[in-house]
């Protein structure tokens, strides 16, 4: 989660929200959240699990391309 927050704090282009899956089960179900952390970029589920910073950035940029 902290990597997403760091990106938002570093760039005005990025916003980052942690969403507690148990409290918002309808949204979690719509996005197929079965494992956490599940990272969703612009409303599209992208990947599950923590990754190192360089890979996190690579995946975000690829999703935004």
């Amino acid at each position, binding site marked *: 989660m*902290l990597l997403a927050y760091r990106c938002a704090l570093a760039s005005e*282009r990025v916003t980052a*929200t942690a969403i507690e899956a*148990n409290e918002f089960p309808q949204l979690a179900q719509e996005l197929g959240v079965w494992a*956490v*952390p599940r990272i969703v970029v612009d409303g599209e589920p992208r990947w599950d699990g923590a990754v190192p910073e360089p890979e996190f950035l690579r995946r975000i940029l690829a999703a*935004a391309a």
Partner: protein
Amino acid sequence: MRGWFAELERPVELVVALGPEETPRAGSGDLDFGGEMVRLCEGLAGLGQGVSCRVEHEPEGVPRFPSVSIRPDGRDAGVRYDGLPWGYELGSLIGGIVEAGRADPSLRPESLAELETLDRDVVLDVFVTPT
């Protein structure tokens, strides 16, 4: 925690948003999530002069309640936690406060350069659970 908050390089404001809440998944407990969020954030604000807290009711742009916006220097930087951050996830909220309190970004220089190449806005949602 007091030590971390004492080292904040700029003030951090927690803006708690309250409003209609979704029915949580069974087993989440019979909690007043909004009330607990207010108590939690007010408690965190009481741990250091650099952290403050205020409450808004159904503010524009917040789709889920309760929610807390973590704001460096009172500025909405797009950093939010939707739901009550309890258990293991309390660390995400505290980590967000510590990060927002840094004067300079803590990402690697290479990562900052990559973020500079973004030519459109990007919305990151990270689904978490307390365990």
